[in-house]
C-alpha cells in the first residue's frame, strides 16, 4: 500500500494515513511487530492458538540506527522490489523513506562477496550480522486476523498483451511507482523504453480480471485506479490523450462522481472493448488491437504507453491459514466457531476504505474471541 502513489478519489497520499497508524503502533507498547516474518503453521482452537512463525534474516540487527553508512559503503545494486524492479537500489537498503521499522536490510545476493564485508565494516554500531539465519518461533494467541492482502496478477501470463516483450506495456502498479515522487523517476511518468513523456496512453481494464483464463472475479478497484491514472497523465501533460478500454466501468457508490469528473475531460476517451491483443508496431512500440463493440470497428491503435489494469490476487496462504479458503484463494472463515478472521483483500477484492472497515470489524471479532 505504501507503494501506491495516491488514492482515488481524493488523490491524496497513502503515506499520510500510514504515518498516523505508524505513530500509533510506535507509541503503543501493546503492539508487537515482526517483519520479514511469515506464518508457517497454525494449530489450536479459538482462544488458544499456537502460531509458528518463520522469520527470514534481515542481516541487520535491531540496533540499526538507519544512518545509511552501509548503503554508502557498497557499489553493488540490486533490483528495487519496492519499485516493482523498475529501478535499482543499493544492496544494503532502506525499503523506503517511511519504512517501519526504520532499519536497513541487506540483500541476500551480497552474502559471500567482498561487498558484504565492506558493508559490515561500514557499520559503526556493529548492527550488521552476516551470519544471521532464518529463525522459527511460536506465538501463543487467542485469535488470528489474516490481513495478508494481495499481489498484482502476473501480467506476463496474459500472453496476447506481450507484457514480457514490450517495454512500453506496463502494469497499473508500475504506473503508481512511475507517478510517485519517491519512485524511480521522481514522479515523472515516462515510457520505460526511452524515458520520454508519453503523449498518447492506453489504459486497459480487466487485464486478467473477470476472465476464466486468469482471475475469475472482478478486482473492484481497477476501474477507479485507471480513472486516477488518467488524472495523473492529465496533470502532467496538457496535450496527453488517454484512452480507456473497458467492459463495464465499475464506479460504485459515490465514486461515480470521480469517474464522471475524469471522463468529463475531452482528452480522456472511453472505448467499450476488451482489447484482443497488443502487437509490436513497426517502431517497436505497442499497438492495441481489438473490436470497438459499439461501432464494430476493428482498430489497431499505436500508443506511446499502455497500462494494463491488472487485478489483485490474494497472497496465497492456503494450507497455513487454518481457515477455509474459497476457490480464488480468499479467506472466508465461518464466523463464531473459529477464532480466525480475515480482513482487507485477504478476505476479498476490496478498496482501501472497505479494507479498513473490514479490518476494524475483524479487530472486534478477534477481541470477542479472547474475551
Amino acid at each position: 500500500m505504501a507503494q501506491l502513489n495516491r488514492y482515488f478519489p481524493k488523490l491524496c497520499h497513502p503515506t499520510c494515513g500510514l504515518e498516523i497508524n505508524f505513530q500509533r503502533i510506535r507509541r503503543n507498547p501493546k503492539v508487537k511487530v515482526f517483519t520479514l516474518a511469515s506464518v508457517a503453521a497454525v494449530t489450536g482452537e479459538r482462544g488458544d492458538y499456537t502460531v509458528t512463525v518463520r522469520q527470514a534474516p534481515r542481516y541487520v540487527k535491531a540496533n540499526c540506527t538507519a544512518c545509511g553508512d552501509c548503503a554508502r559503503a557498497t557499489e553493488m545494486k540490486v533490483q528495487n522490489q519496492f519499485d516493482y524492479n523498475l529501478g535499482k537500489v543499493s544492496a544494503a537498503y532502506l525499503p523506503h523513506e517511511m519504512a517501519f521499522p526504520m532499519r536497513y536490510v541487506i540483500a541476500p545476493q551480497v552474502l559471500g562477496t567482498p561487498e558484504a564485508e565492506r558493508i559490515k565494516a561500514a557499520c559503526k554500531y556493529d548492527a550488521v550480522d552476516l551470519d544471521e539465519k532464518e529463525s522459527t518461533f511460536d506465538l501463543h494467541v487467542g485469535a488470528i486476523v489474516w490481513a495478508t492482502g494481495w499481489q498484482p496478477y502476473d501480467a506476463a501470463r496474459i500472453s496476447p498483451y506481450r507484457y514480457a516483450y514490450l517495454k512500453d506495456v506496463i502494469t497499473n502498479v508500475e504506473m503508481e511507482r512511475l507517478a510517485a515522487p519517491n519512485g524511480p523517476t521522481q514522479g515523472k511518468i515516462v515510457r520505460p523504453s526511452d524515458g520520454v513523456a508519453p503523449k498518447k496512453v492506453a489504459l486497459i481494464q480487466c487485464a486478467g480480471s473477470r476472465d476464466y483464463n486468469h482471475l475469475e472475479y472482478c478486482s473492484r478497484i481497477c476501474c477507479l485506479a485507471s480513472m486516477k491514472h488518467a488524472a495523473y497523465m492529465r496533470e502532467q501533460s496538457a496535450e496527453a490523450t488517454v484512452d480507456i478500454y473497458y467492459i463495464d466501468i465499475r464506479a460504485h457508490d459515490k465514486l461515480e462522481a470521480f469517474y464522471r469528473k475524469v471522463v468529463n475531460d475531452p482528452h480522456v476517451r472511453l472505448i467499450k472493448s476488451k482489447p484482443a491483443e497488443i502487437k509490436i508496431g513497426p517502431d517497436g512500440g505497442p499497438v492495441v488491437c481489438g473490436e470497438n463493440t459499439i461501432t464494430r470497428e476493428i482498430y489497431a491503435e499505436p500508443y506511446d504507453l499502455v497500462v494494463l489494469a491488472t487485478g489483485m490476487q490474494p497472497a496465497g496462504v492456503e494450507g497455513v491459514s487454518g481457515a477455509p479458503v474459497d476457490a480464488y484463494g480468499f479467506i472466508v472463515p465461518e464466523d463464531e466457531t473459529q477464532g480466525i478472521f480475515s480482513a482487507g483483500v485477504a478476505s476479498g477484492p476490496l478498496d482501501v476504505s472497505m479494507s479498513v472497515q473490514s479490518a476494524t470489524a475483524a479487530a472486534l471479532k478477534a477481541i470477542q474471541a479472547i474475551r
Partner: protein
Amino acid sequence: MSPKNTGVYLCSGCGIGDAVSMGSLEKIATKEFKKSCKTNACLCGEEGLETIRADLAGGVNQVVIAACSPRAMTDRFRFNGTQVIRTNLREQVVWSHPANDEDTQMMAEDNIRIAITEAAKSTPPEPKVEGEYSQVVLVVGGGHSGLTAAREASKAGYEVLLVERASQLGGMAAKWSKRMPVRPPYQDPQPNTVATLVKAVEADSRITVKTGCTVAKTSGMPGRFTVEFSDGSSQTVGAFVVATGWRPYDARKLGHLGYGVSPDVVTNVEMEEMLAKGPVVRRSDGKAPGVVVFVQCAGSRDPNHLPYCSSVCCGVSIKQALQLREADPQVMVYIVYEELRTPGVAEEFYRTAQRSGVIFIKGTVKTVDAALTVTVDDAMLQQEIPLSGVDMVVLATGMVPNSTNVEAEAPEVEEEKLRPLKSDINPYAPFAVAGTGAPPLTPPEEKLPEGAPLLNLQYRQGPHLPMLAHGFPDSHYICFPYETRRSGIYVAGPVRRPMDMGEAAEDATGATMKAIQAIHNAAYGLALHPRAGDLSLPIIGLNQCTKCRRCTVECPFGAIDETDQGFPQVNSTRCRRCGTCMGACPVRTISFTNYTVDMLGSMIKAVNIPDETEEKPRILVLACENDAYPALDMMGIARHQFSAHIRIIPVRCLGSVSMLLISDALSVGYDGVMLMGCKPGDDYQCHFIKGSGIAKERMSKVGDTLKSMALEAERVTVAEVSIADSGRLPKVIQDFVEMLDTFGPNPFKGF
C-alpha cells in the same frame, strides 16, 4: 508534583558528532540553561539508554533528547511515563546540511534551545476523569446493520440499547425473501438471515430494544451522552452506532419509466414484496408474467435524480431475476443496464444469472409506455429497439440515506448553526487537471436534506450530523472510514454510503468497534483518532475570556458549547486535541498543559536571532506534525539539502497557530514565517478537517497586521505540503528564502 529536574542527552551518532561540535551543544544546555547534559555516541544503544535510566533513578524526572527525529526510536526513548522532549539533530540538521559549517552548527544549537525551552514550559497532562461513564452502546436503527451492531457489541460484553422507529425490528432487508450470496460459491440467492438476527437480538439479555421510538434530543459527550427519546424516556449512553439505513428513491419521479402509468411497472422493493408473498403476478390482472424487464439505474447515476450509483441494484436485479427464473423456467427475463456493476466475487453471481438464461442488454431505457413497451437504445446493436409483449417492468430504484428523520418535522434552528453543515455538502471539488478545456461539472446546491435531525444534537454547531455529498454522513477519509466529526457517534451501513447487507454487516461491526473504543477512551480521558491516547485538553481561562465565541465556532469537532452566560465550555471527551481553539482565541487564554501559548511563543523566542549585519536571516517554519514534519524528515533521509536559515517547530495542527504568534515572531526579528500544512478545501487532507483551512483563512488577514508593523505581507506564507513532498520541499523553502532576501532583513531585529 515534584519540581522539574531536567536531564539533557545528546547523541553524536549517525553522523551528528562528525558534523557539529558536540561540545558547543553541551555548553548551550549546561551554561545557557544550567541543565545537566550528557553526550553519547549511540544514545539509542543499550549503553546510552542505560545512562538515561540511571539518571532517572537518580532523580531526573524530565528528559530532553537531542538526536534523531522524534518519529524515530520512539519505542526506545520511552521511560515509564517520564516526560520526554525530543529535538531533531539528525534528519533535519546534519543529514540535510553541510557538515562542520557555521550555519549547520547554529541550527543544531537553536534546536537545543528550543527543546529545553519546551521542556521548561511543558507539564505532562493528567487524565481528566470525573464522575460516572456509561458503557452502554446506543444503536439507532434496527435493520440489518443495527441488529448486527447490537449483537456484536453484546458479544464483546457491552450493554446495548437499540431504538427502532418502526413497530418491529428488521428494517428494509426483513422484506427480502432471499439475499445475495456472500459465501462461496457465490452463485445462488441465499435464505434471508434477518429474521434469525432479530430473534438473536430479542433473546440477548444485554440488549434492550425500544421499537416505535426515535431519538428526540442528544446532549453531552462520549461516555456521557444524555439522550431523550420520542416516548419521553431518557438515558445516559456511552457512544452511538447510527444505522438508520435508507429508503427507496421515490419512483413517482420516474414517470418516463412508466411508474404510475401502468400498475405493472413496479420498483425493486415492490418486487421484493411480491417475491416474498409468492408466486409473482401482475397487479393489473393477477396473471403470472411471461416477460419481465428490469431497468437498471432507475433514478441512479442520473444528475436529475440521484447522481451516485446505488451499488446494490445490479446485484438485486440479478437476485430477483434468478428467483423469477427458478419459479418459472419459461419466464423471459431481461436486465437492461448501462454498466453492469457486480464488483468482486459478485461477478460469479452475474455469470449465474447468464447461465440461467437471463438476458442482459447494454443500453439505456428511453421510455416505458402504458402498454409496457420498453424502448431501449441498444448499445450493442446500435439501434433503438422497442421491447414489446412485456408483462412487467421492474425499476431498479436506488437508495436514499436516512441521514435525517424524514417522518418528523424539522425543528426551528438558527441559520447560523446550519450554515457550516450546509456548506459541507459539496463534494465536487475539482482536482487539478492540467490544461483541460472541460467545463466544470455543476456542483450541487448547498442544502440540508429535509426532515428532522437524526439525533438532534444540542451542540453549538448545530443539530445535524455533518454530511458529505448527497447527505451521506460519511467520513471524508479513505484511510479512516470511521473518522467522525462528532466524537463517539459512528455511522454504519447504507446511511453512510450505498452498500449491500454483506458490507453493511461488516461496517456495523467496525462502527461498533469504534463505539467501544470511544467508551473505553472516555473513561480514561484518552483522546480518539487521530491523537489517539493523548491526555491533554484545552483549558480555557474564563477570567480573560471575552465571550467572542471564536473557539466555539472554529472547533472542527463541535466540542465546545456555550454556557448560558455565553462562556465557552469544552466537552472533554468530544475534544480531539487539535488546538484549533487555542489558535482561534484572540486573548490567548486557551492552552494545554503540554502545549501552551506561552510555550510556543517561548520556543520561537529561544532561537538566537543574529543581527542584520551578519546576513544570517532567520525563518520560522511551523510545520504540521502529521504530514509536513515527516516530509521534512524524509528530505533528510534522502539527503536533500535545504537552507540552514530556517528553524522548524512542529505544531499539532496549523489550526493551533494564532496570528499573534506570527506577529510575535516577526517582532523578535524573524525575517519570515512559513506555515506548512495539509491541503485545505473540499478535498482536504488535514487530519483535523478544518485546521489547515482555518489557518489559511487567518493568515489571509495577516497583511493588515504586517502593514501596521511596516512589513511586507509576503513575509508570512502558508505552504500546502503533503507528506510525499520531500522532493519538492527544498525548492519551496529556497524560493521563500530568496524572496525574503529581496526584502532585506526584518527591521525589528535586535529590538
